[in-house]
């Protein structure tokens, strides 16, 4: 039933300073097979793939590809060897044309000069095979992400890859685009090319994959034809839980709470926020002591909403009322003064100041209150920092330790503390537990809940349905820059959130639309 093996990775071990990323992991892919590779963040998927594609070198183990033992030294070598990778963030050159991006590095030549005519023609034909009809001479950056991704795949196909690795290729595509991608994958399969498909969306796996490999804690825990394993069993294997656990709840640090926080006084009300193409009518409200979840696919305008509320980006229209007063925050500084904090999504790019100490990172936003005539009160600073290190359980060698030496979870706790020490009224958390290990995740989640109990209002952006489902008092769902549904109380379920994210509902934020009737 299974065709002959194209790839066999055995007993792969990889250690990073202080961390063992892979322990005797394995992966087998047959030719012409679409193979799902799944696991939680930190399970070792990316490390395994990076070893396959030559971005990392393995410590031990063997890789046999197309009948020969291989050890790719670079992504380039892997590509020449027949393994192409489509990355999550499209890794192409946006200023260059679509055709150039497909043929970069192996441009067709005539008399030693690039043959533009042939290059454009071949690129056009390649893309038309995937039912994509565009002007291939335009810069790649003038097209949307889906086209960019198709370009990347066309490139992989044109280098005659035997194996295409797709690392969460659907995370930024809408349904129609996903369908196009699946067509392409089926075509690849039909022509004998194997695909390794990494995704967190279970339905997609069942729609397109033949086999599945599940990883957990750096090890391969299951390999099976996908039709032989149910979704719940899949999740259970991934999380190392019993089936009964998955079916009930308790996957997060949020404890079941009586969802009645929406009764508090209105803290923030935003209506019809607009900003370019990113925000096209977002309305939401947050009450005192309430946790409002903000759901939506990538690119639906979640982060943009957070930034606009915080004054980091300017709105083109729309109203924001905070504590009953109309506000127009021009800078984050204004919002901070009013009592708002924003913990941004990308910890590395927008959160930590890597070389500065835990102390300086923690008190960065508080500094104006700590300074007298511009001079920082060191004693008060130390007192506050120590208090929060203890309270949040931040594991650090001391307040002097540079923050970049801390683990992701502890960095995130410092960033939370950066805002908590301001005693804010509203905290906007953009993916508060992304890239954080399981233990720290639960701690952060229960901390958020504790804060809300004390009266803090929280706007929590999350891609994890469990987090939204178990943590939120209400969930506002965004789609294409618009708020399409507000789910309250018992309307909130993983199912209803996904439905609204995917299909939308009538726009009527703040009042609690009944989703079923809206659909």
């Amino acid at each position: 039933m299974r065709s002959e093996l194209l790839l066999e990775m055995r007993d792969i071990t990889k250690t990073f300073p202080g961390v063992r990323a892979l322990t005797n992991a394995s992966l087998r892919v047959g030719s012409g097979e679409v193979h799902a590779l799944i696991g939680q963040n930190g399970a070792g998927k990316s490390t395994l793939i990076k070893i396959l594609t030559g971005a990392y070198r393995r410590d031990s183990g063997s890789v046999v590809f197309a009948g020969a033992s291989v050890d790719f030294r670079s992504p380039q070598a892997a590509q020449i060897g027949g393994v192409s990778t489509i990355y999550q963030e499209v890794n192409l050159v946006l200023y260059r044309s679509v055709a150039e991006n497909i043929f970069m590095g192996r441009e067709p030549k005539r008399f030693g000069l690039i043959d533009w005519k042939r290059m454009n023609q071949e690129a056009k034909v390649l893309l038309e095979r995937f039912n994509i009809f565009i002007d291939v001479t335009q810069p790649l950056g003038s097209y949307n992400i889906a086209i960019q991704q198709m370009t990347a795949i066309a490139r992989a196909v044109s280098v005659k890859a035997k194996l295409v690795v797709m690392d969460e290729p659907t995370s930024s595509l809408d349904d129609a685009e996903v369908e196009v991608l699946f067509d392409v994958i089926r075509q690849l399969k039909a022509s004998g090319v194997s695909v390794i498909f990494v995704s967190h969306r279970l339905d997609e796996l069942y729609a397109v994959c033949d086999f599945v490999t599940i990883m957990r804690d750096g090890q391969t825990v299951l390999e099976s034809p996908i039709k032989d394993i149910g979704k719940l069993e899949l999740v259970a294997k991934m999380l190392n839980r019993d089936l009964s656990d998955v079916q009930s709840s308790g996957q997060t640090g949020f404890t079941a709470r009586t969802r009645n926080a929406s009764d508090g006084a209105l803290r923030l009300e935003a209506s019809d926020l607009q900003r370019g193409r990113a925000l096209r009518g977002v309305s939401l409200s947050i009450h005192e002591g309430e946790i409002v979840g903000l759901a939506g696919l990538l690119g639906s305008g979640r982060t943009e909403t957070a930034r606009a509320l915080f004054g980091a980006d300017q709105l083109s229209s729309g109203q924001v009322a905070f504590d009953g007063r109309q506000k127009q925050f021009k800078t984050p500084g204004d919002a901070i003064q009013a009592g708002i904090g924003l913990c941004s999504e990308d910890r590395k790019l927008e959160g930590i100041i890597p070389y500065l100490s835990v102390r300086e990172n923690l008190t960065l936003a508080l500094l104006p209150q700590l300074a007298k005539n511009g001079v920082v009160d060191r004693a008060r600073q130390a007192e506050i920092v120590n208090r929060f290190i203890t309270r949040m359980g931040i594991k650090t060698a001391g307040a002097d330790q540079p923050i970049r030496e801390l683990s992701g979870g502890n960095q995130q706790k410092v960033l939370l503390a950066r805002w908590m020490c301001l005693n804010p009224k509203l905290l906007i958390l953009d993916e508060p537990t992304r890239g954080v290990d399981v233990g720290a995740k639960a701690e952060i989640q229960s901390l958020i809940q504790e804060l809300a109990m004390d009266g803090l209002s929280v706007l929590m952006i999350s891609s994890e349905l469990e987090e939204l489902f178990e943590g939120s008092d209400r969930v506002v769902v965004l789609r294409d820059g618009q708020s399409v549904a507000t789910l309250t109380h018992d309307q909130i379920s993983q199912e209803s959130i996904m439905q609204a994210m995917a299909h939308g509902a009538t726009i009527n934020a703040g009042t609690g639309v009944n989703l079923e009737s809206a659909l």
Partner: protein
Amino acid sequence: MAQKALIQKPNLFLAFVQQQGALLAFVALLIFGALRYEGFFAVYNFAELLRYNSMFGLVALGMTFVIMTGGIDLSVGSVAALTSVLAAQLSPHGLWIALFLPVLAGMVLGFVNGLLIAKLKILPFIATLAALLAARGLAFLAANNQSVSVATDTGFTDFGQGNILGVPTPALLMFAAFLIGVLVLRFSSFGRHVLAIGGNEEASRLMGLSVDQIKIGVYTLSGALAGLAGVILASEFGAGQPTEGSGWELAAIASVVVGGTLLTGGKGSVGTTLVGVLLLGLIFNVLNFENGYGLISLSSYWQSVIRGGFLLVVVILQTRLTKGQKI
């Protein structure tokens, strides 16, 4: 983060101004000069204009490729000073030796720049700043702190001072170099890869481009062209001058930017750099005529003030025009 179309289709008018603004200004200035000054629209004036600016043109050509990779080369001026000294010292041995060995020396210095940047990962402006110092030091050492006169009996000076078919030889060389540059950028893998690296270095690496080699390549090219400019300097003015060439890097950068190449790399054109060079040259030509006209009198010191002001205007325009297009 939403990442829909990252490069929006620019306003067509603005795009035209950005791409052809230098050309428009150039033509306007030509017409202005022709109407206002006697002897401006004369073969002699243009020939000498081209002859003098050919040095800057060659340096700016190399700089264009460097900037398109997202780098910068501050060492071009002192490399030219060094090779002008070497050329002067080699001039008794005839033109070819005095031409090739200094160019080779420029190449070697550029190659070292490239190694420092690509292999040791030193920031381009620091690496080439060090090269600027070192080349200047070498120039003083070689010249023993004074200008070196060239041999006049070996045909060396004909190179810089002569004409072919009525066109100054250095200018012909510059035009040829730009023509090759245009072709290389458009039709060779090297040219396309230069643009790719400047556009997204990480992606280029993943696409299997030899990023390090290409970087070393552009700095070597820049060194060679600066070396050639130094030879022309010695030949045209009859002396190797270890103190010459300071500020050339700035003139070159200004020309490149005026030509519409993005300072952040990834997007640019060779042809418009030539227009940028000629435009800058023409501005000073017009100023000279204006001085001769007697209405105003600008000392030569105004040159650097004007050059700085010009760079300022151009850079501000560029940031305005590319707004919303940046990645």
